[in-house]
């Protein structure tokens, strides 16, 4: 008896720890809650995007449909790894990310399933969604060249390829090759020009850099205005954000920057998308499709472009004024579905050629 008495506290303690006695103590949806009661009233999203606009639209979707949306946010690579490890037990129904290459990788890893209701994709041009409908974009941004409108004459710009030319020595600003936008750009170059040519391009580009890659996209445009380099490779979307920044000093920079869309005479300017796909083991497919439809609706789309300065994927929606003022451009649409395949190759290549 005595022996038993002494062991009890430890047994209780370890049992408590092992069964997770404090599980559900917080007001958080656990997996069981999601799965068991009313599966049709739930939708679980893994997303890399954490803009306030997404949050607001999700809340609106909940109100409109009565579906409870649960969101888990992390980097796209982490979320992909999660989906991979979870396999058929994944609680996620939708995977949302800011990178077409990651969407392609998710498809290739067998983590997604095709969107069956083709009607909801009607408004999205075929060149900005997966060719087998495993994913669709809902917004996109262009990887553009940014320059100082007071000091630079844009007639010197032509293509991404041209940036490897020695005439750009010491003039190019771009962030690290560890950034997903640059990885996608390299992947698109491989799709367009092949591996060897891309390797040479990376070599030339790296040799022309004004400084060791650092900082984020906004920092590149600030460096242009500061005169550290002449041209920055950056995302259109950040410029819109800067022009409407809370920080007056950032607004000033934003207003001094002008944009050039490269490769207009050839394949078009590289874009990247924010897109979504239904997970292969989704338990709430109907709600997932409802959600896609909602995100692609004209109402949501016009908010994406007006509040977040992205290009809307729905072709019927008017583009935001600031964004529109940069001009129409031709999209490089040949390669979007191919990006995932070249992602690893391109990343390794950038390492090898010294693009930090």
């Amino acid at each position, binding site marked *: 008896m005595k022996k038993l008495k*002494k*062991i009890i*506290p*430890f047994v209780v*303690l*370890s049992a408590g720890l*092992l*069964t*997770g006695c*404090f*599980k*559900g*103590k*917080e*007001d*958080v*949806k*656990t*997996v069981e809650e*999601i799965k068991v009661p009313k599966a049709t009233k739930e939708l679980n999203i893994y997303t890399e995007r*954490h*803009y306030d606009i997404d949050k607001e639209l999700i809340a609106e979707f909940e109100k409109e449909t009565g579906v409870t949306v649960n*969101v*888990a946010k*992390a*980097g796209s*690579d*982490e979320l992909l*790894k999660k989906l991979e*490890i*979870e396999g058929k*037990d994944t609680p996620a129904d939708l995977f949302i990310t800011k990178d077409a290459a990651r969407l392609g*990788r998710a498809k290739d890893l067998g983590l997604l399933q095709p969107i069956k209701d083709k009607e909801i994709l009607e408004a999205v041009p075929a060149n900005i969604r997966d060719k087998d409908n495993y994913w669709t974009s809902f917004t996109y941004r262009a990887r553009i060249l940014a320059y100082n409108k007071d000091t630079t004459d844009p007639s010197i710009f032509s293509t991404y390829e041209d940036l490897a030319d020695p005439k750009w020595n010491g003039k190019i600003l771009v962030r*690290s090759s*560890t950034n997903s936008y640059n990885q996608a750009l390299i992947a698109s170059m491989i799709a367009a020009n092949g591996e060897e040519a891309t390797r040479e391009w990376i070599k030339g580009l790296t040799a022309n850099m004004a400084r*060791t890659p*650092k*900082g*984020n*996209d*906004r*920092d590149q445009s*600030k*460096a242009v*205005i*500061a005169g*550290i380099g002449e041209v920055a490779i950056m995302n259109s979307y*950040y410029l819109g*954000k800067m022009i409407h920044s*809370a*920080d007056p000093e*950032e607004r000033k*920079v934003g207003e001094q920057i002008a944009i050039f869309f490269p490769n207009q005479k050839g394949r078009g300017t590289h874009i990247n998308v924010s897109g979504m796909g239904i997970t292969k083991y989704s338990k709430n497919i109907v709600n997932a499709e409802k959600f896609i439809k909602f995100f692609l609706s004209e109402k949501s789309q016009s908010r994406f472009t007006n509040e977040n300065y992205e290009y809307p994927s729905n072709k019927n929606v008017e583009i935001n004024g600031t964004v529109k003022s940069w001009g129409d451009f031709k999209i490089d649409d040949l390669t979007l579905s191919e990006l995932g395949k070249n*992602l*690893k190759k391109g*990343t*390794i290549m950038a*390492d*090898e050629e010294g693009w*930090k």
Partner: protein
Amino acid sequence: MKKAGNKSMNLKNLKRNLNINLDSWLFTSLILSFFLLAPIVTLFTSLATQNIDTFIHIAKTLLPEYIRNSLIITLFTGLFTMGIGVSTAWILTMYDFKFSKFFNVGLILPLAIPSYIAGYVYSGIFSYTGIISKTARNLFGYNLNLDIMNIQGVIFIFTFFLYPYVFIIARSFFLKQSLSMLESAKVLGKSDTQTFFLVVLPLARTAVVGGVTLVIMEVLSAFGLPSYFGVQTFSTGIFRTWLTLGDTDAAINLAIILMGLIFTIIFIERKSRGRKQYSFTNTKIRPINKKSLSTKHSIIAIIVCIVPILFGFIIPLMQLISWSFMTYKDVINYKFIEVIWNTFSIAMVGAVLATVMAVIISNTSRLKKGKISKTLSKLTTIGYSIPGAVIAIGVMTFFIFVDRKVLGQKVFYGTLFLMVFAYIIRYLAVAYNSVESGFDKVGMKFHEASKTLGYGKTKTFFKVDFPMIKGSIIGAVILTFLEIIKELPLTLILRPFNFETLSTYAKQYADDEMVQHSAIPSIVLILIGIIIILFFERINKKKEK
């Protein structure tokens, strides 16, 4: 039975008691260790197919840079934190001057600011649109090109936000250990400076090495700051290999190299300090007669103390406050209270559980003088040397396996349990060190006396040991809490749906290049940290009395 007058009967009882108790402590310890180690073991055994192509690529192209950068950062951060930590601790121990009471607390405050938030803030201050360049440009028409996002910047930030680890340990050492030596040296006619270099520094060596080791461990496993600044280190390399290149094998190979490195450092530290133990919690002092300083010397002392507080606390806080005025409208809403509560409660649960486990394992290892328990106790603290993301994925993999194969239904996965569990693996070492030092200070005397008087081990623990090491236990909870609220990579991966903490909240804005918006969650995080630190200081003061 208890009143058996027979001596040999008594002895027999005692022996039986001993065995029973030994079993229950050891048994619990073993179970805990098993579960703490299982996720890590799972990870390493998942290396079924050793595909080394990617690893060869990394070894050829990136590994030299990872090693070089990690070593440079470690070396300089180690040296600088030592310089600042030791000099300020010495001045505050020896001299009395204006504000010295304030400095005693103020010098610890940078610990409340996570290094990645410091990174956001300083990159903002130094950016083209930051306060310095802006002022130079708009007021004086002068174009400055400042840059902090480089390896020097990483060292700068680690130095000013991690030196308190050295400061705390050095201060407690100076207060406690060197007093009699100091007095002897003075009697023998040595000046203060001579005393410092000839007597105190050699004596304090091991304590200082202990503090610097903590700094180095933090630096080596830190991910947020180097990745934001674009400086490739081991930690960022593991992350990149694993996730971007999608190569688990190569990432684990890298992790093993990193752990090897850290174990070497720990080994050197243990060897160098021999059997002495130093920790934050040892502060039993005899009051020292502090010297008053002349005005001139006072000013020097004040400058030496104010500079670290300025860079490590005041400047970043001011910048955050100014940003928060720009953005509070967008950030503060009803959800925000929930975020604060999440941060606080999860860290509290994690810290308390980690401490309870640390007590169990540490007490077992102390009572059972065997190889097994010693090894176990070392092994369970292994998590401190593994990057958070690696632990997160290990924990995920393990619990999915348990749910699927052992329980046959979803029980653990997707719950907060996983997160707390991972925190414990990651930070058990922090709690363990504090608790262990408490036990060391108490020694075995009282414990043995209690046993001789007929108490069992468990009863002895609660009636005798616990009250004596209560301070160390609270210290363990506080330090672990402080670590958990600042944690990021593990939290990001393991948090359940809709679960947001202050650190994830701050990070999401910084990732979106909206660093001004991360100010409010950062400030709240820092405030919680400050409150906890002040509480910690008060407890230490109480113990001194």
